[in-house]
């Protein structure tokens, strides 16, 4: 089953066609990676799919339903969640509270109940905290749950964003460079987290520069260059695609891709 499908998706910023007629069809339960050189439109594609930008042209279907023009919060309620390349942490809150916000779409209380702390609010808070604890534990941050978020290390914040997105129980999770700036150990931890997410039946779309991670973990890889699709296929197909090697990976990248086989 195709969970996310774009058709001739396009957006331009001041004459620059950042995404130009891109078609992707993402099968449910897969890890689908989007790669490409800097400025090729990967994050723009994420912003289109998650409703932050509205496309100039083309369509987006989430589980078969047309979703162009829906706001990010409406998409979140339809089971789409994401993380950000430049961290978007709630820095005044604790790590656990960050993840508790991720439960928002499952919380059922009204403003009046919230003001008078109706018993339903206490029950809701407890349920939310429990679910958030589970999500924090899943990314290996249980010991840091009560720490202020701004006191956590960079790699931990990357995982905290994943936990926050997971807490919303998405069907489709977009991860924007989860391993950027992480050391090999942290990258390995993130790879493990992604594998466990997929095991739970959540579809993962990954934008990532770390080729080793991409090639190891992906079911399919989609290559963008200058806002257009350059190639798509399995990691092996993409790795051996001459257009990709020439336009994107280059000599250094192809060597790295060879290493990734090990």
């Amino acid at each position, binding site marked *: 089953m195709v969970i996310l499908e774009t058709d001739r998706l396009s957006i331009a910023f001041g004459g620059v066609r950042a995404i130009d007629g891109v078609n992707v069809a993402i099968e449910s339960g897969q890890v689908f990676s989007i790669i490409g050189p800097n400025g090729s439109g990967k994050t723009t594609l994420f912003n289109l799919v*998650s*409703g*932050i930008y509205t496309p100039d042209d083309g369509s987006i279907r989430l589980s078969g339903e047309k979703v162009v023009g829906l*706001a*990010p*919060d409406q*998409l*979140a*309620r339809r089971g789409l*969640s*994401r993380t*950000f390349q430049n961290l*978007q*942490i*709630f*820095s*005044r*809150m604790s790590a656990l*509270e960050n993840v*508790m*916000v*991720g439960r*928002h*779409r499952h*919380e059922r*209380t009204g*403003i009046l*109940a*919230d*003001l*008078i*702390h109706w018993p339903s*609010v*206490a029950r*809701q*808070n*407890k349920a*939310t905290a429990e679910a958030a604890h589970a999500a924090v534990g899943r990314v290996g941050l249980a010991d840091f749950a009560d720490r202020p978020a701004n006191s956590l290390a960079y790699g931990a914040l990357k995982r905290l964003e994943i936990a*926050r*997105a997971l807490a*919303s129980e998405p069907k489709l999770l977009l991860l924007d460079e989860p391993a950027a700036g992480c050391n090999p150990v942290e990258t390995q931890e993130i790879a493990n987290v992604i594998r466990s997410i997929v095991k739970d039946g959540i579809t993962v779309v990954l934008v990532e520069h770390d080729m080793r991670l991409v090639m190891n973990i992906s079911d399919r890889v989609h290559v963008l260059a200058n806002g257009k699709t350059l190639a798509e296929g399995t990691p092996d197909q993409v790795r051996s695609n001459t257009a990709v090697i020439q336009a994107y990976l280059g000599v250094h990248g192809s060597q790295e891709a060879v290493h990734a086989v090990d």
Partner: protein
Amino acid sequence: MSALFCSRLMPIAAVVMIAAVVPAFFPSAYYYRVAALVFMFALAGIGLNLLMGFAGQVSLGHAGFIGIGAYAVAVGPTHLGLPTWLSFFAGAALSAIVAFLVGRPILRLKGHYLAIATLGFGVLLSIVFTNEAKLTGGPDGMSVPRLVLFGWTARGSETWYWISAASFVIGAGLALNLIDSPSGRALRAIHDSEVAACVLGIDVAQKKLMVFVISAVYASVAGSYLAMFNGHITPEASGFLRSIELVAMVVLGGMGSIIGSLVGSGVIVVLPQALSFLHEYEHMVLGLIVMGVMIFLRGGIVPSLAVMFAGRRKW
């Protein structure tokens, strides 16, 4: 659960005790008067703190809502023949409606732009209060009848001290409840990252509007109390300077600290009285103290002192 309840409402218990004990040391009714003013402005401060300190949305026009509440208890009984208590609630309802209508377009703005838009709103309201002289008495203002409930008349500073202290406690309790709730977490999330809040399913525009309406009701209630307490109301009560004072209370006391609103109100209301012996230097010293607080207690008085006593950070 009861432990959670206690920790959340602990500050309230402290305020109740202080409010109950402090009058024993009041040498005259004048002290009741000043303390009542502190609690009334602190009530408006709580509302503005929910908006600014928690949701991160600035308002430089909140005295406009104080004006709506104040003129409601003046105009309602005088021109419409409504009982004062009903005018009080009508003022709160009117403030909520006005906040809802004004908030929808202007809360799309951010930062400085929102500040200027709310500033314009406040100025607009105070012009209305000044120019609609037939209804409001114009620049000279109008008198406000006393609050009468079941044949009992609220008069005197001591009575209003207890009314305003009790109202502050209720208002602070509601605010602390809100902060520790799904809506409160959503507001705090919006403060730090709107984009992250909305991709997690939070309707950012709706939550901002909600807190704007709540903060307007707090200001309106405070305005009604001030008007009934003083027995007279002028457009100045809703003017630009009053809005700035409110912002100063919230920032001085501590953004995101409900008790900070009380402390901030205390500073802004009490200091000018305490410094009156300095005569012409009064405002200069007041300004220096406010600057000093902001330089040395950057996060506001209550949060900064809390950090110092917790000893987590060395300054």
